């Protein structure tokens, strides 16, 4: 590639969406889990993927992170096709999965150093970055604790800190607050929004809880594998004519949704 081509490519990337999902469908056997799903996450934006359990959110997550192969449609991260250029796409991605993925036998610091190695970051630099992200997440004093001894809320916060370790440009969080109490949930949401604001990364936040949506967020409503509505939360409210997001969701999907946990 010549210098000109490289510069052109860099400019293209700067203009490109953080995440572009285009016409993605997915089947489990004969059952269609995703049906022609398309949406975009802009760089630096906070996008909520809203849907009930079973809507296809986790399947979409698995496709974006290349745990499953995309057989129909395309998924690009900053212009890099996840299927064809997985290395370039995945290195720009920070992920927090719904199930806990830390190694319970290792300490918080050891988990972070391991994650850094999986992104080609050496132990010294990894420890420096780990101390920094843990301090920002208020977890500095937990660095030497075994993950097994941490509460669910702390484990989740460590996972979020870990997702920032390799300095991603796009962060995916799959139902990151599931199973947490009200305070831990509020802490997690505040932590992510604060980090997003300071780091300027794009976020795709999947949830089935309406109260996790802010007015300034972009929202994609996924129902039974289909995108039924997308846009800024305020635009969706205006288009639906509903007084709040919960009413808008009911109107758009015909299904009830939780405001928050336990409601």
């Amino acid at each position, binding site marked *: 590639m010549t210098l000109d081509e490289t510069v052109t490519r860099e400019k293209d990337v700067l203009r490109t969406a953080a995440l572009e999902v285009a016409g993605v469908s997915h089947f489990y056997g004969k059952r269609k889990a995703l049906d022609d799903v398309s949406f975009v996450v802009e760089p630096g934006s906070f996008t909520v993927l809203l849907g009930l359990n079973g809507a296809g959110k986790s399947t979409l997550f698995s496709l974006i992170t290349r745990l499953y192969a995309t057989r129909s449609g395309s998924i690009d991260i900053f212009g890099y096709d996840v299927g064809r250029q997985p290395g370039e796409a995945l290195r720009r991605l920070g*992920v927090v999965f719904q199930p806990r993925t830390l190694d319970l036998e290792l300490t918080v610091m050891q988990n972070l150093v391991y994650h850094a190695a999986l992104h080609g970051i050496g132990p010294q630099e990894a420890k420096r970055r780990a101390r920094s992200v843990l301090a920002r997440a208020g977890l500095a004093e937990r660095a030497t604790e075994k993950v097994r001894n941490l509460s669910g809320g702390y484990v989740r916060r460590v996972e979020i800190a870990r997702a920032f370790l390799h300095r991603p440009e796009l962060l995916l969080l799959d139902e990151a607050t599931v199973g947490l109490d009200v305070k831990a949930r509020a802490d997690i949401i505040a932590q992510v929004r604060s980090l997003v604001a300071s780091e300027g990364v794009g976020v795709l936040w999947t949830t089935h809880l309406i109260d996790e949506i802010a007015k300034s967020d972009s929202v994609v409503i996924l129902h039974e594998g289909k995108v039924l509505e997308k846009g800024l939360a305020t635009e969706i409210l205006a288009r639906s004519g509903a007084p709040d997001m919960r009413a808008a969701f009911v109107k758009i999907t015909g299904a009830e949704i939780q405001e928050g946990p336990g409601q």
Partner: protein
Amino acid sequence: MTSIAATDRPPRKGFGPAQYAICLQGIVWREALRYLHQRGRFVSALVRPLVWLFIFASGFRAVLGISIIPPYQTYVTYDVYITPGLMAMIQLFNGMQSSLSMVYDRETGNMRTLLVSPFPRWYLLTCKLLAGTCVGVLQVYTYLLIAYFWGISPDSPWGYLTVLPALFLSGLMLGGLGMVLSSLIRQLENFAGVMNFVIFPMFFASSALYPLWQVQEKSPWLATLCWLNPFTYAVELVRFAFYMQIDYFSLAVVFGCTMVFLAGAILAYDPARGMLIRRGGAAE
């Protein structure tokens, strides 16, 4: 809080050799840490072959001698004969233990951390395989240290060095087999089946415990089974290397099987073609 400057973002090209080395180092380091934290695993990995050596082999030593067969230059006692078999047994169990660890990682979700790394999937699986093999080799040398005080050692101290490549290769083969099995096992509970249908048949239908020419005389069909068993060649490769010799046929078989098993594992963990997509394994 310091924001990240554009220059801190990942560069726009692939990883260099140093980063590949860091990734390998990280995976080996994590495997070693896990192994050290699981003291039960460490102890049982040592006790198993030592029980065979101290009790089983000692009992048979009194009634059984092994005639002169390569690589041995003289008659050897039974405990000397089965030592390479026990070294390979450690690796067999370690390979299967690694597969158990992969099933566990998949069930707990930890496997995702590995699979969403930007390094090529084949490289990650090879690193994982190498990491498991390193742990197995460490176990074998610990066993050899104890066996030395029991009076078992190679003809020359160099044997401890020449056996190292053979241990690595056989460890890779057995780890590769374990990795393929891990992609086929849906749940941790199914691992008991691996014990019954893989580990025990492979170990007993091999040259680990008895020379195959003797088996041939008593039971030709069992001898054929042993010759078809890749574990037999791992045992013989280790046996010859321990006495500073190379059994080229065993080397070829073990190398070939390693390639086949590794390719199978890479295929099984490939999101486009592998088992995971059909079984919903990685993303469950």
